[in-house]
C-alpha cells in the first residue's frame, strides 16, 4: 500500500510545474507567519535574559540592547549568595520530589488495578476517581484549605504535597491505565505460567515495559509541582518553607524597582526549566496527548 503512494502522488506533479512558484510563495508566507509567532513567543523571555545581564538603567533605556557596561554578573551573585534563594530552592526540590514520587507510585498502583484486575466495585471506584477530573485544584482551593487547617497541616510541606498528589491522581491514572491496557494479555499469562505473582508481574514486567508512560506522567508532575504557587501561598505562612515561586514574589516585593535584579532572578529560574524541557519534550508530549503524538 504505502510503497505505491509516493508514485501515485508524484505522477500529477510533473505537468504542473508552474504550481511550484505558487508553492514557493505559500512557503514564504508560512515561514513569515511562523517567524512572527516565534518572535512574539521568544521576545518577552529574551528581554528577561537581556535584562538580567545588564544594569537596570541600561535595561530600561533599551529593552533589547547588548550589555555595553559589561555583563553584570553581580546581579546573579547577589541572588545566588542570598541564603533565602537556596532555602527556597531546597523547598522546591522537596516539594517536587515528594509530589512526583508519591503521585507516580500511587497512580501506578491504581492504574494497575483498574487496568488488569477484575473485582466487584471496580467500575464504581473508577467512576469516583474520575469525578476528580472535574475539579481542578484552583477551583477547589478553599475547601482544601479548610481541610488542611482541620488536619493541622498548615505550615507543613505535607499540606502542599498531599493535596497536589490527590488532584493529580485522576489524570495520571487515566493516562497510565491507557498504557497498561495496551500491554498484551499473553504476556501476563506467560508470566503467571512461569510462577509470577500478581505483584511480581506488576513490579517486574508491567512497570519496566510502561517506562515511557511513567516518565511522561512523572514529567508532568515535576512541572506542576515545581511551578505551583497558589497552594503553597495558602498553606505555608512561614517564609522558611516557601518554594521558589513564592520566593521570587517576595524578592519582587522587596526589590520592586530594581528590574535588572528581578530579571536576573527570572533568568536563573528559566534556564533549568528550558534545559529540562529540551530533554523531556517527548515525555511531555506523550503525557499530554496520551501517547498519540510521537515526539
Amino acid at each position, binding site marked *: 500500500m504505502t510503497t505505491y503512494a509516493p508514485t501515485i502522488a508524484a505522477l500529477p506533479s510533473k505537468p504542473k510545474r508552474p504550481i511550484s512558484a505558487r508553492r514557493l510563495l505559500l512557503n514564504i508566507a508560512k515561514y513569515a507567519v*511562523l517567524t512572527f509567532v516565534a518572535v512574539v513567543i521568544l*521576545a518577552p523571555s529574551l528581554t528577561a535574559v537581556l535584562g538580567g545581564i545588564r544594569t537596570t538603567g541600561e535595561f530600561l533605556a533599551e529593552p533589547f540592547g547588548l550589555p555595553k557596561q559589561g555583563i553584570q554578573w553581580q546581579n546573579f551573585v547577589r541572588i545566588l549568595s542570598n541564603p533565602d534563594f537556596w532555602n527556597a530552592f531546597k523547598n522546591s526540590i522537596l516539594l517536587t520530589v515528594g509530589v512526583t514520587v508519591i503521585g507516580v507510585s500511587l497512580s501506578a*498502583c491504581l492504574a*494497575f488495578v483498574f487496568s488488569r484486575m477484575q473485582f466487584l466495585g471496580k467500575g464504581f471506584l473508577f467512576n469516583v476517581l474520575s469525578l476528580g477530573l472535574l475539579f481542578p485544584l484552583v477551583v477547589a482551593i478553599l475547601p482544601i484549605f479548610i*481541610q488542611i487547617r482541620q488536619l493541622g497541616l498548615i505550615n507543613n510541606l505535607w499540606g502542599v504535597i498531599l493535596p497536589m498528589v490527590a488532584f493529580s491522581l485522576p489524570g495520571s491514572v487515566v493516562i497510565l491505565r491507557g498504557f497498561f491496557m495496551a500491554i498484551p494479555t499473553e504476556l501476563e499469562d506467560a508470566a503467571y505460567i512461569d510462577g509470577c505473582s500478581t505483584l511480581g508481574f506488576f513490579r517486574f514486567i508491567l512497570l519496566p515495559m510502561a517506562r515511557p508512560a511513567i516518565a511522561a506522567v512523572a514529567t508532568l508532575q515535576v512541572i506542576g509541582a515545581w511551578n505551583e504557587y497558589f497552594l503553597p501561598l495558602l498553606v505555608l505562612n512561614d517564609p522558611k518553607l516557601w518554594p521558589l515561586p513564592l520566593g521570587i514574589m517576595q524578592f519582587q516585593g522587596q526589590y520592586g524597582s530594581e528590574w535588572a535584579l528581578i530579571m536576573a532572578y527570572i533568568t536563573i529560574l528559566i534556564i533549568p526549566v528550558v534545559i529540562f524541557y529540551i530533554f523531556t519534550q517527548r515525555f511531555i508530549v506523550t503525557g499530554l496527548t496520551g501517547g498519540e503524538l510521537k515526539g
Partner: protein
Amino acid sequence: MSTVRFRVLPQKAASFSAQPLNRTLSKWLTIGLLVAPGMIVFLTFLLIPIAQSSYYSLFKWNGFGPPTNFRGLDNYVDLLSDGVFLRSIGNSLILMTSSLLLQLPLALGLALLVGRGQLVGRHIFRAILFIPYVFSEVITALIWLYVLHPNMGLMNRVFEAIIPNFKYIPWLADRNIALYAIFLVLTWKYFGFYMILYMAGLQAVPKELEEAGRIDGCNEFQVLRFVTIPLLGRTIRLTIFLSVLGSFQQFVIIWILTQGGPVNATSTIATYLYKYGIQRFALGYGSAVAVVLFCITLFFSLGYQRLVMRQDYVLRE
C-alpha cells in the same frame, strides 16, 4: 482464567482444596494494598473537602471553632446579589469566549503549519511555540508585568517604534483594556498546549482521504474545510472542553498582574473567591462561592460530555 489454573500447579497437592479461599483472600489483599493508599489520599484531600464545602456554605464562619452561626441559604442570596461577583462571572465568560474564538483557531492554524508536512525546521518552530507552557505562571506573570509596564514596557516600546505618534497605553491600568491584555498573556502561555493536542489529532487523519479530496478537485482550502477539520472533530471537541474549564480556573497570572483590578475590571471567579473568601477569612461565604463554581463546572462538564463528546470516549474506556 486459565492463568490461575497454571499458577497452582507447582504447589503441594494437599493445599489444593484450601486454594480457592486463599486465592480470593490474597487477591483482595493485593487489591487493598494497591488501591487503599491512593484512594485514601484522594478522598481525604479532594472528594471529602469538596463535599464538606456545601455544608460549610450554609454558615457564617470565620474558621475558628466549629461553624455554629447557621444562615441557611443567605450566603447564596448575598452572593448572587453582589455586583462584583456577577462581574467576575461575566469576566470569566469573556475570557472563555475569547479563548474559543481566538486562542483555539490560532492553535489549530499553527498546528496545521508545524504539525506535519515537509516544512524545513518545523520541529524547531514547534519546540519554540510550546516553550511558554513549561514556564511557571509566576514567571510568565512577572515577565509580562514588565512587557505591559505603562512607561517602560516592551509592548509600548514596540508600538512606539512601529506606529508614529503612538501614545503609551497603560495596558493593565485601563479598565477597558486590562481584561484583554490578560487574555493576551493567557494566550501566549497556553496556546502551545492546544497546538500539541491538535498535532496529535492531525496525525490520526489519514493522508489518503485528503489525497482523495485533491484528486476529486478540491483546492487546499476545501480539503481543509471539508476533510481535515471534520476528521479532527474529536480533538476539537476535547480542546473546547478543556478551554472552557481552563478559563474558569485562571488565578495566578491575573492575581499577579492586576489582583482583579482596576475596579474589578479583571476580577474572575477565582480571584473573587480568594479576595472575599480567603483573605477576609469568610470561610462560609467562600464555600458558597466554591459551591457555585462547582455547579458551573459540573453542569458544563456533564452536559457537554452527554451532548457533545458522547461519541468520543474521553476517558478512553
